[in-house]
Every structure is written in C-alpha cells, then in structure tokens.
C-alpha cells in the first residue's frame, strides 16, 4: 500500500563488529499514517532504534550498512535518494528527538540559535527563524522564553531540555516526528508532562509520531499502535490493548509479566529493633541545603525504600551514612554508635556490616579487575573474614548465589551484560555478609526483564540471609513490589513515610499522590484511569 505516510519494508541493517557481522535489524516492516502514534517497543539490543536511524540517514557506514529493504516516504524510497535530497527532508519533513537531550544539544551554542538553525538550515531567513524559535520555546512551556533563547543547554533542567529538543524538531512543522526514548531518565512527573506535550502538539499539527521506547507504560499512555521488537526482528504488533491483553508471542508475554508493580505488597514486621537510626541528618553545600535534618529508623531485616525525584536528596542520605561525604550536622546511629563521628579505624570495621550496590554496574566495577578480584577484594581489605585458601571456593559460592556461574570468576566486567554486572556487584556486597545493603537506584538502569530478575534475587537474599535493605529508587512500581516501608522525599526533606501498603493505597500528602498518579501503568485500561486522575489532580 503506497498511501501510508511512511513505510518501512523488509529493512535489514547489519553492523560490522569484532565478532563479525551482526544483523541489527532483520527484515523489519512497519508503517505510519498521518496523525497516528506508532510505538516501537523493545529492550536494549532489540534494534528498535535502527530503523529510525536508517530513516534519518544517521547510520554510519562503516560500521553499519543497509543490506536490503526500502523506506518509502510518501511513496518515494529514501534509500534511493541522494544525500542532499535526504538532508532536505531531515528536520523539514521528518524530525527526530532523542533520549538524553543534554548530550544531543550542542553545549556551546544558545538554545535559541540551535532551534532557529532548523529553519535557517532549510533556507529561512535568520530573523524569521529567531521569531519562530521564540514562539516555539514559548509553546513548549519554557518560562520567560526571551531569556531562555539566550541561555545554553546546561542552564536548563532535564525536562526543559527535552522540551527544547521538541521545539527544535517542530520548527518546520514536520510530517513525522521520531522520538527515541524521549522520557527515559526523566522523573515520572516530567515524563508525564512531556508525553502530554507531544500529544498536544500532534493534535495541533496532525503529524505522525514514532515513539521508540522500552517502557510498556509509555506505550499504554501514548500509542495508537505498537510493534514489539526482539533481536532485530518484529515479533508482534497491534494496538496497546490487544498486545497487553492478548499477547501471542512469548516474548511479549514475558515483557508484560516482568512489568513491576502488580505483585503482593509486603507487610513490615512488628516490633523489630532499629539497627540504623538517623537523627537530623543534614548536608549543606554552601547556601544550598541538599539534605535538611531528616530522621528515620531502619529495622533489622527490613527493606526501607527511599523514593523521590532527582534532587530530592535520597542519594545524599546514603552517601552521608557511608561517609562517602561528610555530613554537615546530625547523627547516624549504627547499633547505637554514631557512624558520623567514628574514627577511620572504627569506620573500617563498621563498613564490613554496611555495603552498597550502585546504580550503574558498568561504572561501579573496576574494568581492569577480574570478577574474582572484584568479589574477593573485600577479603583483601578485611583480612580474617575468609581464609585465603577458601577464597576461590567462596567466590564460586557467591557467584552461584547471585545466579552466575563459578567459571565466570576469571572474566572481566565488560564481558557481561548489564544485569549480570549488577549481580557481580551484589555478590561483592554479599562477600562480607553485611547486615545492611544500601541499593542506590540499583535496578533503574536495567531492562524490565532483567530488573525483575535482580529484584527477585534481592528478595531471595533478604529472605534467606535476613539482610536489611535501604532501597533508593525513583521507580514506584519496583518499590511497591519490594519494600516493607516507604519514605517519600522532596527537596531534601521527608514528605511522608509509612508501610508500603499505606503509602500506595492511601497517600496522604499531595506530593505522594501526584507522584503515584504520574507513574505509567502497562495496562492501557488502568493507565487511562490514572491519566484521568492525574489531569484531575493538576486541574
């Protein structure tokens, strides 16, 4: 059918890598009509972004190469056009926005200039372009647009930058907007706002929207149709409702099953004694107070979730307790002794009992150490915990405990996938048999299916070893499945705290309510209700 706005037919793209040729996408076909939103759903490595890169002529060759297929825009094959012809389409007829707007905006030019460039690149005179840019900045909801035009990307928040990217993409009212993970790494409330903005703009211009995402919630919220990709192939397509309720392909089903936030909620044990008590914990950077006198208890064997948007101070709290940064005021009593006033020697001892798992396992594991060296390092530092001759055996045990194989010990971190690396980090944290593990966004960087596995692993360890967790996260559904108690933070203060069921079912503070309403549910029906609730809240 030639009357689709955009049609990808049998597209195959391959990349040359050290391992040989990898088929990034294989015989992929989809189409988009005017005014429609198509979601391309997939996890990392599924090839979900490759076809859009091919549309925009952004595949570098080498190492990438289009092996076969055609991309028809208004019936004309893009792949047969000259680079110059394609350049004329880019930005004018087909526009694109990306994940991580900070790195996708040129750091050294004003945003006004960059937005106007979309127009000047296609021959519009400069003053007209700037006037239009100003209107766009205003339209996407940036306050004080005249001043904003003269600012640089680093002077905006993440959400604002994404709005600016959208403004940039829409300068010439393109027929198609491709949004590649536009809301990943944004806070939930901001995510909802951006999606709403995209929807409004689509209604205004009637453009077709391609939404590339790994999040079923985004699909449920925004998409008219969706294709599911795995390993470079489309495994299933349909409306969000169909996909969610009548998924045929096992992979789709697996994805849906892995979506967090629908299990039973836990009930905290009564009468457990606190092992960690923070009182008036404060951290100030000059005039800015990152953490404002927070107090809380953490019980033995309990999982305390700390939730909040970026900048709420939740990670700062963890760093203060672990003395990665020095607190300005307050105390953190560990079994009655103040961690914050311990001598380095006492602290070294206390560290045996409190371990941490970081957000990004790629960065928290030293790339130049083998898994064996990483996992056994705690024993080098704390001699006497495990006898040296037993190290090999114990590393093997720990690896198996976290679902890896004993023979993995000889490999290096970069040889593992993200989820596996996080398991290694967990094994390292377990090596000292701590009482408390602080997880700082430990699963937020992982794909949903992997995330589910890691959460399950942590749950298992909690049950088997009686370890307490301080679970820092911005992702509410994960918290709902895993935590005993929840602590909601905003602007360096605790807004609300209580048992997980109470927080999720009966949030008392407006902020908590907004946070919950902004979350996206994978079930289109649930999401529709939630959206209505959200609109009501904001009205």
């Amino acid at each position, binding site marked *: 059918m030639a009357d689709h706005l955009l049609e990808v037919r049998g597209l195959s793209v391959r990349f040359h890598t050290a391992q040989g040729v990898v088929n990034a996408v294989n015989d992929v076909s989809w189409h988009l009509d005017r005014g429609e939103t198509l979601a391309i759903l997939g996890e*990392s490595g*599924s090839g979900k*972004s*490759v076809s859009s890169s091919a549309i925009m002529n952004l595949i570098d060759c080498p190492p990438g190469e289009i092996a076969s297929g055609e991309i028809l825009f208004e019936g004309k094959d893009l792949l047969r056009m000259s680079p110059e012809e394609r350049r004329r389409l880019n930005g004018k007829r087909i526009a694109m926005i990306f*994940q991580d707007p900070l790195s996708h905006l040129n750091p050294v030019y004003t945003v006004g200039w960059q937005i106007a460039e979309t127009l000047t690149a296609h021959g519009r005179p400069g003053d007209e372009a700037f006037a239009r840019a100003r209107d766009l900045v205003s339209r996407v909801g940036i306050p004080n647009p005249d001043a904003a035009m003269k600012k640089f990307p680093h002077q905006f928040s993440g959400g604002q930058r994404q709005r600016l990217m959208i403004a940039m993409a829409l300068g010439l009212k393109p027929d198609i907007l491709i949004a590649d993970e536009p809301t990943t790494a944004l806070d939930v409330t901001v995510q909802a706002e951006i999606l709403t903005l995209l929807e409004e703009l689509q209604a205004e211009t009637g453009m077709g929207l391609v939404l590339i995402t790994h999040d079923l919630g985004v699909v449920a919220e925004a998409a008219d149709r969706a294709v599911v990709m795995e390993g470079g192939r489309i495994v299933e397509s349909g409306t969000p409702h169909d996909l969610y309720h009548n998924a045929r392909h096992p992979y789709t089903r697996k994805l849906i099953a892995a979506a967090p936030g629908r299990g039973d909620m836990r009930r905290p044990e009564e009468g457990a004694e606190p092992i960690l008590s923070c009182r008036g914990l404060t951290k100030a950077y000059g005039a800015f107070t990152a953490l404002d006198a927070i107090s809380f208890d953490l019980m033995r064997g309990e999982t305390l979730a700390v939730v909040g948007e970026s900048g709420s101070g939740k990670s700062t709290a963890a760093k203060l307790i672990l003395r*990665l940064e020095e607190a300005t005021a307050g105390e953190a009593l560990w079994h009655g002794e103040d961690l914050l006033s311990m001598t380095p020697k006492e*602290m070294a001892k206390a*560290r045996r009992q409190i371990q941490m798992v970081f957000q990004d396992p790629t960065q928290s594991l*030293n790339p130049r150490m083998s898994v064996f060296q990483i996992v056994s390092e705690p024993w080098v*530092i704390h001699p006497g915990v495990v006898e040296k001759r037993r190290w090999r055996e114990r590393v093997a045990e720990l690896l198996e405990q976290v679902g890896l194989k004993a023979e993995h010990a000889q490999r290096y971190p970069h040889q593992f996938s993200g989820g596996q690396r996080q398991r290694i980090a967990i094994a390292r944290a377990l090596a000292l048999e701590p009482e408390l593990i602080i997880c700082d966004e430990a699963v937020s960087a992982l794909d949903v299916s992997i995330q589910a596995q890691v959460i399950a692993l942590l749950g298992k360890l909690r049950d088997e070893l009686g370890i307490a967790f301080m679970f820092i996260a911005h992702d509410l559904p994960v918290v709902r499945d895993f935590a005993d108690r929840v602590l909601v933070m905003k602007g360096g203060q605790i807004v609300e705290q209580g048992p997980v069921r109470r927080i999720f079912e009966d949030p008392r503070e407006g902020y908590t309510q907004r946070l919950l309403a902004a979350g996206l549910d994978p079930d289109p029906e649930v999401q529709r209700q939630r959206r209505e609730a959200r609109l009501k809240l904001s009205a």
Partner: protein
Amino acid sequence: MSDITAPAPAAPNPAPPAKSSILRMLWADKFATVAVVFLGLVLLCAIFGPLLLGDAAGGQNLRARNAPPFSLERGWLYILGGDALGRPLLPRIVVAAQNTIAIAAGAVAASFVIGAALGLIAGYSRRIWSEVIMRLADVIMSFPSLLLAVIVLYVLAPSVLNLVLVLAITRIPIYLRTTRAEVLEVRERMFVQAAQVLGASTFRIVFRHILPVILPTLLTIATLDFAFVMLAESALSFLGIGIQPPEITWGLMVSQGRQYLTSAWWLAFWPGLAIILTTMSLNLLSSWMRIALDPTQRWRLELGGRVNG
C-alpha cells in the same frame, strides 16, 4: 539505551587482550607493525651493538675520512660511509643506539615514575600537599632546561647518567600534571566509591584502582615523550652542553656532522635518519596504543582489515 550509539551493545564484548590478541591487533595496523619491528631492531642494537661493533666504531682511519656511502671498497662496515676521523658510520650508529636509547629510556622511566607518584599524591590528597606539588611542578616547568643542563653537567660532569637526570627533571611536570588531572577525574568514578564502601585504604584505592586506569594514558604519553627526549638530547648536543665525545649518541653524531653538511652530507644524514625513524616509530606505536589500550576503541583494531573500504 539508544541502539545506534554502539554497533551491538548486547553482543558480548571482546575478551581482554591476551598475548595473541595483542599481536593480532598489532598486525591489524601495518604501520604499527613495521614500527614495532623497527623499534625491536633498535633495541637489539642498543643491547648488543657495543659488544659486537664497539671496536669497529672506535677505530680511526684518517684515510677513510668522510668516505662516501654505498661503496663496499672498504668493507661492508663502510656501507654508510665514514666520518671525519674515518670511522665507519654504520657501526657507530649501531653503537650509539645504546647511549641514545639509555638516555631516552632512563629519562622517560625516571620522570614517569616520579611524576606519576607525585601526581597521584597531588590528585588524591586534598590537602596542602597537592598545592605544594603543583607549585613545584610550575617551578620545574619554568626552569630553563638549558640552565638546568649546564648546572647539572657543570657541577656533576657530563655523563649519560647526569644527562638522564637533567632530562628526567624537565619532563616530570608532564606526567605530574597528567596524572593529577586524571586522578581528579577517576577518583570521582563509581568504582572508587565502591572501594571506599568496602573500606579500602587510600593506598589501595590509589594503587589498585586508580593507577591501573590511568596507566594507558601515561604509557601513551611516555612513548611520545621518548621521542621528545631523544630530540631534546640531540638539541643539547648541538648547543654543546649535552653528551660529549668520546661518548656517542645519534644526536651528537648529527650535531658533529652538521658542519660537513655541504661536503659530506652522510655524516649528519644517517644518524638523523635513525632519530627520525625511531621517533616516527614511537609516534606510530603511541597512536596504536591509544586505540589498543582503550576498550571502547579497541574494536577498530579487532575489526582488522575487514571494514577496510
């Protein structure tokens, strides 16, 4: 999590560089291969040269004075010609390799070790030491190296060891500043925090976690610096305050031969060529190392010639 940033993120990453894979990566870069072969040859000359050809290089023969090259009349030792005292150039170049390489290697090694150590301290300690060390580096940087050379060589007599001392001191700031800058960056990385959480000592963090990460950068600089030091040594010889006869280095040979440039070009040309080829090889090696030691760039080499379009 955008898929096009890396060709195939999900694909397992290549194995760590084992010996064979290093060789394979080297083979993938033909320039680097040639460079390494040449450097190996130079190294052999440096080690065994004086042993094998020491006598031939010292034997004067005023009749073979400025003997032109490419003539086998006086035997193969004179293939590159003879110098102003009729000593054959080929063995002299081979023998001079020892001093040349010893000076460069000694200076680079010494400045590397001292500069990196000071840089680690300056980068990791937040205290006054950092400030003191950086000021010290400033002082060394602005201390005229020629004056330093004159002082050291005057007070301590010109010898290979003292020349190494001079050159090492002047190169320390390079390593110091680089190390410090890198440490400041690496110390903020997550795995350093992870080690802190484990309770690792400062010593362990610096030497076990930070140093290995910055080592490739330092090694790359060291190869470049090796070339630089060779040129600096020859410039000192030219100015008359470097190594002096009867010791020989390539730099000295060039500077002695320069006055014959119009009448007997080969006196300065061959040792000059040796310097150029060696520094070039080091430069090539260093560009290769920049890629080979960087896990995110290594694929370029592991791809080998296949993508060669």
